[in-house]
């Protein structure tokens, strides 16, 4: 059913008995035109755009648990396109544009809130790097603003300007950046895809990928074999494990990124603020909770939890940036498994196996990329070739040396 | 000699203020004595010379030395294990540099010795609340049953690397850390001792 003010009023008056399931719970078919493995944000978005943009409707999304149980439900909800390198900016900017029209597009309020993202810098060399980044954005037609110290103060007077170990010199502002209600993204795409005929198979685990003569032919699942000549993997932290089912080794390590939310308080900050002298970023949700995070724990893991050191590190950076946080409290912490790539940038593309496509390597950047990732992956699967927007995200770039290394830390995934 | 021409400046000069700190009432729970004059060398066993080196080191301090994180001392000279086949020699007191050089001469055959120019500071921390104060930054177990007299550890406090050894059961902990971060470590240490009252002396 279509969601609208009227449907809410009508159902309110009639006791809500008319609300129908947001998506079906279908039985798997024997064969699909395309299968997406992974019912997270990227997988659901891929299915949605395959149906919407490429007219493929006989498709299935196969999810081991419940939809959105991966990183789309465990992140700090930030969206932005303030990237540095040519391979990245157009892609993330496309993503931001899709975010901007998403709710009307899939008729679900994901609360896309373009409240602004500020990256703080704390030294002259930091500043030069951010200026370079801001200019890269401006060259792409993406508006960025340079804030000096006083400029930052006008947005966030509560930061530590007077007694900081690393004084704030200024910031780079992208006003179009912001936050999104993360769970709603998965739900909106799921509902949109379902309405276009996509089968969302929850609690269905892929246990094998069948390849014959170098071509993908289908997947073994906990509910039987499902045939398909196009299989897209969008498995985030589990990418290596799933790709291994097809005998594929990926330049990926799985790491845990922890995130946190505070108790709800009345509005304190509007922007998303990223600290430059330590790994810390924070925003406030519409419910009032401060949502924040820091660095990955740094060791390979598939356990969706982290350790105390990283937690303490995040809070130290938080207090260093904003000493008024002291009496607020962490309410809940969680961890998501990040598919950290060897250059810190994603991989969306073909593989050496015909009909098998990968979408992985999102590092921290997966959430904000969700719409463009789905959009590009859908294109890549439908046309069997990448779109110009994801052309740089080839799997073979590590062999050719066409790396997209924003941080310049090289083949060390836990440094990206 | 050089000492006559150029004077040394100790790492904690301008940072450490002798006297009572923190809580003023009652006996000080922690006593910190800063040993200003030290000389330090890094000793690494030459290939195949580990056993020979251990004998030389043992002779120097008149007690067995093991390839373990332990501190053995005689008079002003101490030898502390810091890594397999590696030790740190520390001489305290006025004639520290000369004493150290004499020791180094004995070691040449079995070890590669790197004289460190003393970018370090050393403090003895003792008193009934010393363990409680140190536990505010040091993550290893300092319980007398776990960290016994003679035990040594390289670890950190307040994100700053340091070397800790227990030299007697008063207890007195020897702490050695880099000069460059001495001010920050000092800020942590004195803040941690504050609630117990702290006597600082040179």
């Amino acid at each position, binding site marked *: 059913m279509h969601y609208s003010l009227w449907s809410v009023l009508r159902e309110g008056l009639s006791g809500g008995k008319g609300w129908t399931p947001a998506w079906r719970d279908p039985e798997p078919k024997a064969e699909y035109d395309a299968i997406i493995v992974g019912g997270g944000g990227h997988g659901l978005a891929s299915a949605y755009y395959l149906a919407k943009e490429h007219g493929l409707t006989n498709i299935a999304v196969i999810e081991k648990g419940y939809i959105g149980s991966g990183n789309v439900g465990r992140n700090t909800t930030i969206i932005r396109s303030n990237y540095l390198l040519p391979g990245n900016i157009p892609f993330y900017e496309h993503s931001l544009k899709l975010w901007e029209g998403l709710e009307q597009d899939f008729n679900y309020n994901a609360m896309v809130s373009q409240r602004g993202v500020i990256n703080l810098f704390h030294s002259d060399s930091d500043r030069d790097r951010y200026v370079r980044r801001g200019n890269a954005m401006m060259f792409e037609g993406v508006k960025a603003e340079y804030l000096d110290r006083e400029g930052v103060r006008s947005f966030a007077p509560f930061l530590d300007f007077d007694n900081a170990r690393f004084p704030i010199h200024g910031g780079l502002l992208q006003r179009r950046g912001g936050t999104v209600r993360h769970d709603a993204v998965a739900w909106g795409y799921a509902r949109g895809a379902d309405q276009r005929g996509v089968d969302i198979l929850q609690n269905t685990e892929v246990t094998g990928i069948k390849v014959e003569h170098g071509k993908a032919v289908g997947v073994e699942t906990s509910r039987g074999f499902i045939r398909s000549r196009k299989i897209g993997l969008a498995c985030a932290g*589990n990418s*290596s*494990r799933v790709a291994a089912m097809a005998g594929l*080794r*990926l*330049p*990926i*390590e*799985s790491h845990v990124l922890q995130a946190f939310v505070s108790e709800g308080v009345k509005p304190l900050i509007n922007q998303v603020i990223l600290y430059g002298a330590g790994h810390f970023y924070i925003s406030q949700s519409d419910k009032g909770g401060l949502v924040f995070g820091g660095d990955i724990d*740094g*060791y*390979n*893991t*598939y*356990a969706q939890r982290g*350790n*105390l*050191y990283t937690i303490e590190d995040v809070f130290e950076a938080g207090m260093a940036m904003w000493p008024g946080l002291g009496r607020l409290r962490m309410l809940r912490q969680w961890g998501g498994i990040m598919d950290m790539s*060897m250059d810190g940038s994603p991989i969306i593309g073909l593989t050496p196996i015909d009909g098998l496509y990968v979408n992985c390597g999102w590092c921290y950047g997966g959430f904000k990329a969700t719409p463009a990732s789905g959009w590009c992956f859908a294109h890549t699967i439908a046309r069997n070739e990448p779109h110009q927007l994801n052309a740089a995200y080839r799997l073979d770039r*590590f*062999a050719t040396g066409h790396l997209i290394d924003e941080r310049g830390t090289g*083949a*060390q*995934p*836990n440094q990206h | 000699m050089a000492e006559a021409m150029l004077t040394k400046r100790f790492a904690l000069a301008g940072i450490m203020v002798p006297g009572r700190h923190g809580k003023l009432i009652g006996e000080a729970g922690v006593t910190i004595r800063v040993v200003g004059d030290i000389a330090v060398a890094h000793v690494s066993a030459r290939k195949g010379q580990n056993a020979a080196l251990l004998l030389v080191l043992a002779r120097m301090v008149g007690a067995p030395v093991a390839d*373990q*994180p332990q501190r053995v001392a005689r008079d002003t000279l101490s030898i502390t294990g*810091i*890594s*397999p086949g590696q030790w740190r020699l520390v001489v305290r007191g006025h004639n520290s540099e000369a004493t150290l050089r004499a020791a180094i001469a004995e070691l040449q055959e079995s070890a590669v010795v790197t004289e460190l120019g003393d970018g370090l500071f050393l403090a003895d921390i003792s008193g009934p609340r010393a363990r409680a104060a140190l536990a505010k930054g040091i*993550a*290893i177990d300092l319980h007398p049953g776990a960290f016994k007299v003679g035990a040594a*550890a*390289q*670890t*950190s406090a307040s994100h700053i*690397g340091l070397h800790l050894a227990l030299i007697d059961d008063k207890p007195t902990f020897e702490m050695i850390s880099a000069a460059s971060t001495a001010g920050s470590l000092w800020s942590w240490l004195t803040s941690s001792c504050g609630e117990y009252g702290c006597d600082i002396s040179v």
Partner: protein
Amino acid sequence: MRIGCPYCGERWNDEFVVLGDADAMMKHPAEATFALFYDYVYLRDNPAGRHRELWYHQGGCRQWLVVTRDTLTHAVHGVETARCAAQDIEAAS
């Protein structure tokens, strides 16, 4: 998480720096062929379960260690120095 350093004893993971898959990263190719080096630099095991990996005890004895750890439970099943492990590799090859 706590890692038992063979020299220093058990310490929290704050004191360590992690590099990654020990089996891949310690087998520095003897031959300078591109294929071998591509594997060496970019393809590391990323298993769910037991994993041998390189940890550096930066905050302690500064030794590189090979830690066998379960990536699902974070349980540490064994620690040896990289020096010993490397000598084993050499002896085996």
